[in-house]
């Protein structure tokens, strides 16, 4: 091989080496761009999923707000109904008194009994006979019941679950339901992460959930859901008349 041929061979080999380098660079660049494209696509997908999750969170909050508003409406209507029924019962009693001879004596006697025990409800068609019911003062709570008590009770027992936060930020140390002269102690300190997310940290009540199971004997009763604050006072979270039917035969 003469020097000119040798030089040509060197040039050829050098060019082939550069060609290989360029092709590897192009292949690497193509792979890099493909990976970037995939990363971009995944980021886009992630963004869309995050938007969807954000929308679902918003919808869930909206549903919770609407559910709580409906809960408040049902509670208000139940009290209106109870008041109307008490007024109707009083009107019927008045009517009976006017129709019956010497009716005024019995009317006077019932009025006297009511004056002695204001918590006692009228008998007969009235909301609830509860001679042993002694009302506790109403407390000021933010609360919500996952199993609303405003219903017709058809089972032998019922579990009331929900959460309650005293507005004065005292700790809730107990919860009970009183119904039909009986008292049912419930469980407190249950996790409610959604409540903390909505209302912020609650140092006195980091787990504001509770659960109380109580018996529902047939008839009309006065239900009082009560919370004990700081191991001392029992305060009413909610009082409402309820109606319980005889459980169906098995």
């Amino acid at each position, binding site marked *: 091989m003469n020097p000119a041929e040798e030089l040509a061979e060197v040039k050829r080999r050098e060019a082939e080496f550069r060609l290989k380098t360029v092709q590897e660079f*192009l292949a690497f660049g193509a792979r890099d761009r493909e990976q970037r494209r995939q990363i971009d696509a995944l980021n886009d997908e992630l963004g869309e999923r995050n938007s969807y999750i954000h929308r679902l969170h918003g919808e869930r909050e909206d549903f919770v707000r609407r559910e709580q508003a409906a809960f408040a409406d049902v509670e208000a209507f139940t009290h209106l109904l109870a008041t109307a029924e008490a007024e109707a019962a009083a009107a019927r009693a008045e009517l009976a008194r006017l129709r019956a001879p010497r009716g005024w004596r019995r009317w006077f006697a019932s009025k006297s009994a009511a004056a002695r025990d204001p918590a006692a409800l009228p008998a007969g068609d009235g909301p609830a006979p509860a001679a042993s019911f002694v009302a506790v003062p109403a407390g000021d709570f933010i609360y919500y019941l996952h199993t609303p008590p405003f219903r017709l009770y058809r089972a032998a027992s019922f579990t009331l679950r929900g959460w309650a936060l005293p507005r004065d930020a005292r700790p809730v140390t107990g919860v009970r339901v009183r119904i039909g002269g009986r008292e049912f102690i419930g469980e407190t300190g249950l996790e409610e992460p959604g409540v903390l997310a909505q209302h912020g940290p609650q140092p006195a009540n980091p787990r504001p959930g509770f659960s109380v199971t109580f018996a529902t004997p047939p008839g009309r009763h006065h239900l009082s859901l009560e919370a004990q604050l700081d191991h001392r006072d029992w305060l009413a979270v909610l009082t409402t008349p309820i109606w319980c039917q005889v459980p169906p035969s098995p």
Partner: protein
Amino acid sequence: MSSADAHARWEGSTSKLGERSEYKRIWNRQAQDYDTAALAVAGHTDEATLDLTARGTVDMLRATVGIEPTDLILEIGCGIGRVAGRLSQECLHWFGADISGAMLGHAAGRLKARPNITLVELSTVGLGEFPDDSLDLVYCTVVFMHLLEWDRYRYVQEAYRVLRPGGRAYFDNVPLDTEHGWSVFTASARYPFARRPAHISMTSTREELRTYLAKAGFDAARIHDLANGFIAATGTKPVAPAGPDGSSAEPAV
């Protein structure tokens, strides 16, 4: 498809002048089918004429910058690969780069039998897909007339970067100061304002091309008058590294 149909489709595929910088979209749009693409980049569709003009381009390259059998050659804006079939027979490897992936799709169809050809879609104006100091010859023909001046210079700079020391560069355009160039200029000037298309031909001056090459760092910049009425600017990337006296081979920008 008749020639009239192809022309009508091509005219329907053009974009407005204000969109001239959107090269990828404009040229992809003009490459919707092979005939439209061929008309857009070469002005005709038959293979015989394409091959004839390719031979003319190879002859111009041979006469101005030379072609070596060991050359790694890059064409900027190769379109449908008009020149590649001929030129790839005279070099070690031919790279065709274009900003339009659709144009490269047609090129791939035309050139699939060639073993020493690589087609590369450019992501944007520039040659970022190619490594530094790697190629022997970079050329760009019948492309500058469709580019804005800043983008012409960008490709000159990038050619300098990817050429190995001693590598050669070639850029051509329609000159303003020849009869042919002036006819192109006045034909473009006659377009109604609202109908000037994005790809409309814009001429260069000799001084413009000479300045680009000098500012990019090329040595031995020359302007050639070509037989087809174009001018070509050629230059060589210096072999010597930058000197301390300012007579540097490095780019002046």
